[in-house]
């Protein structure tokens, strides 16, 4: 069935095409430094987008991820700075911060999930609300400025972002790991099937003895944990957090998911597509940086066009069958 192939392969073909454009535009594009930079940068959005794939597949939406990332960054930095006085081992401090980060992410997701399922408020409204709350909290925590990580810790922690294993930066390995786990979870487990079913038709899911509320809440928690993983590898990059951290991440994550072929109305999701979508978005930014033909300021416009075209192609494929 060529139709199905096109649909699965579409995002991948686009990725290859954009890659070729990159090669043609600038020789520096193919340098190992640039390539590993692209991969590392796409890791943040990619990891967040993998969480978003679950939420969207199950028929939800989470707009709060960017603010959540900023808030978790802020919490981690404050916690690590505070622990400096009482704990000697920097590694222990970092591990504690990582654990706290995962906890905050999970709880934040749980709150989004419970508000949508138990309080029965639309996901769009709930996460629009929490988006504002987290953004404002981090600005308040930073007193309107920037929270900076203590230098001594920052030095050690920066290894997480800059360290390299088998030629690839650590964030890329984390991205790969999250993607593989996400793939298995979505495609090979009962939970994954239930996500598809809930997103496809909640009523059918309920009459199939699926715990609809639990599945939906779990997707938001998964999203929260993904945000916290992305944050864990993002904090050492800059060593700071402010009201500007993670801005528009939610849109980039959703864009990556949609470009990858996941259906926004739910019921169908693809982890592989999401990974490709995240790579496409980062590649575009990177190529615009390397060329003078199009201003770098138009990055958002190009991304926007890509999203619209991707959805248009998706719809066409839906219509045909």
């Amino acid at each position, binding site marked *: 069935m060529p139709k199905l192939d096109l649909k699965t392969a579409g995002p991948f073909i686009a990725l290859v095409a954009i890659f070729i454009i990159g090669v043609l535009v600038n020789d520096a594009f193919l340098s190992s430094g640039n390539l590993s930079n692209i991969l590392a940068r796409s890791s943040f959005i990619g990891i967040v987008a993998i969480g978003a794939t679950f939420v969207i597949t199950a028929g939800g939406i989470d707009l709060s991820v960017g603010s959540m990332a900023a808030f978790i960054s802020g919490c981690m930095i404050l916690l690590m700075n505070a622990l400096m006085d009482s704990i000697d081992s920097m590694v222990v401090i970092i591990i504690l911060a990582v654990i706290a980060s995962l906890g905050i992410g999970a709880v934040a997701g749980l709150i989004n999930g419970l508000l949508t399922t138990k309080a029965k408020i639309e996901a769009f409204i709930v996460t629009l609300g929490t988006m504002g709350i987290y953004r404002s909290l981090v600005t308040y925590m930073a007193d309107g400025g920037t929270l900076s990580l203590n230098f001594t810790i920052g030095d050690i922690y920066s290894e997480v972002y800059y360290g390299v294993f088998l030629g690839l930066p650590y964030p890329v390995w984390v991205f790969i790991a999250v993607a593989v786990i996400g793939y298995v979870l979505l495609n090979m487990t009962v939970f994954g*099937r239930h996500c598809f*079913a809930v997103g496809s038709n909640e*009523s059918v899911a309920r*009459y199939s*003895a*699926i715990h609809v509320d639990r599945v939906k809440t779990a997707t938001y928690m998964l999203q929260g944990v993904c945000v916290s993983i992305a944050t864990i590898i993002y904090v050492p990059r800059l060593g700071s957090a402010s009201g500007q951290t993670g801005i528009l991440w939610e849109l980039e994550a959703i864009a990556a998911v949609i470009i990858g072929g996941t259906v926004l109305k739910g019921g169908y999701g693809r982890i592989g597509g999401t990974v490709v979508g995240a790579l496409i978005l980062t590649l575009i930014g990177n190529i615009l940086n390397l060329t003078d033909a199009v201003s770098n300021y138009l990055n958002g416009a190009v991304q926007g066009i890509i999203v619209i075209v991707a959805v248009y192609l998706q719809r066409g494929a839906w219509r045909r069958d």
Partner: protein
Amino acid sequence: MSEEEHNIVTLSVKNLHKSFGPVEVLHGLDITLRGGEVHAILGENGAGKSTLVKILSGFEPLSSGELLLAKDGGEAELLTEWDNETAERSGVVLIHQEFNLAEQLTVAENIFLGNEIKGRLFLNKKAMKRKAQEYLDILRSEIDPDATVDRLAVSAKQMVEIAKAQAKNARVLILDEPTAVLTQQESQVLFELIERFRQDGVAIVFISHKLDEIEQIADVITILRDGEMVGSYPASKLSKDDMARLMVGRELSSLFPQMPALPNEAEVVLKVSDLLLPGNSKSSSFELRKGEVLGFSGLVGSGRTALMETVLGLRKAAKANRGTIEVRGERANFKQLSSARGKGIAYLTKDRKGSGLLLEKGLSFNFSLFSLHKMSRLLIDTRSEAIAFEKAIETFDIRMKDKSIVAGNLSGGNQQKLLLAKILEAQPSIIIIDEPTRGIDIGTKSQIYHFIAQLIESGHSLILISSDITEIIGLSHRVAVMYHGELSGVLAGDELDEHEIMRYATGLKSKSQNNKPQKNESETSGISNAQA
């Protein structure tokens, strides 16, 4: 409409062919619909009835052949540009099986939708309301023209559709399975209406799977089989057996299988006591025994589905009285369907498309959704899933062009078999099935009845909710009848008679009122109506 305004039309098709892409689905039909006749169209699912009525009403173009319309016995006019709008202007109106009403608008607004009475600038709401009331009066309906449609019962919605057809001055009225969603009583009201339309010279096309209805009201019967015309016959020349035989193309073994008798001392597997539905004052109690089919009869909206869904934890019971549920003597309180499934209870919903199957998902995906926990540990064992699916296709005789199609592309009967396969894969011992044969052709119907008999033979217990009284009587050991959200009685033995059931279903009789003792003692008969 006064007698003088009669305009009798004759709509006919000659050598009608219809193809979808390369596939021809109608192979040369010749049918004439005359004013003042009720023309029944009969055929199994997939025989081409729906396609035919869509062509007649201008929703689908024909591929080749002629459509002819003659007015008042005049010359037949060849219809070339036949779309839905033209059809309705010519008085050819189709009432869809799934209604075409704007749920949020009022009855009057719906009746005149797309056909509004306008003043100079704005809609003339008063005139529309008055006129709507007139139409409803003619139908002897008590529906309030100001009520919003979403609050109406199914039968009332259908009434609105008919009033809408009147507003369009229908001369050819096509009813696609109008009684599928009606109770027998409501159907009779509809038949009276049809009779009045007939006397008024309207040509009526009536599609139904219910042969006794066709026998009752049809003047002419056209039978289709696999898109071919078997023939058009005067209704007086065909018996129900003839109809079934011509439709299926082979002799049907008896529709209802021989049901195994219920042993006297059969263990009670499900006992529901004093369960109160929200908004009701009386609670309901009943018992189901091993190897029994307990029928649930009643009018649409009498609370049969609500009662079962409450038992299963799909709906909440009234706060005042949650009642008690015992499964094989053990107390149970199901908060969600999975706990009921854990106790070996499965529920087949009546809403096949809305709650039963994921129409845009594959067949195997749908099949395993209710029993996935049995096919997986950490990961889903896709091999055992595939094997189970293959087996189910065979056991339930699910027919499809290609295993990779989505559930929405299966015919209604095969969807129902897939749904049955889905819930039975969880290997329940107590099965609650709700309207298992609604909108299904007679061949598949008979198959489903035989599946039910097999289940009973192998020791399963079954609750059968159905609005088809023949089906209820044909399959049930005992019949519980509901009226207005409460059980009005449980009938057994000689009481299992259509009229007796209707008396309970319409509130004329009730076991709690006359306190008539059951054949056994009222304790063991399983039914009592407790005061809340």
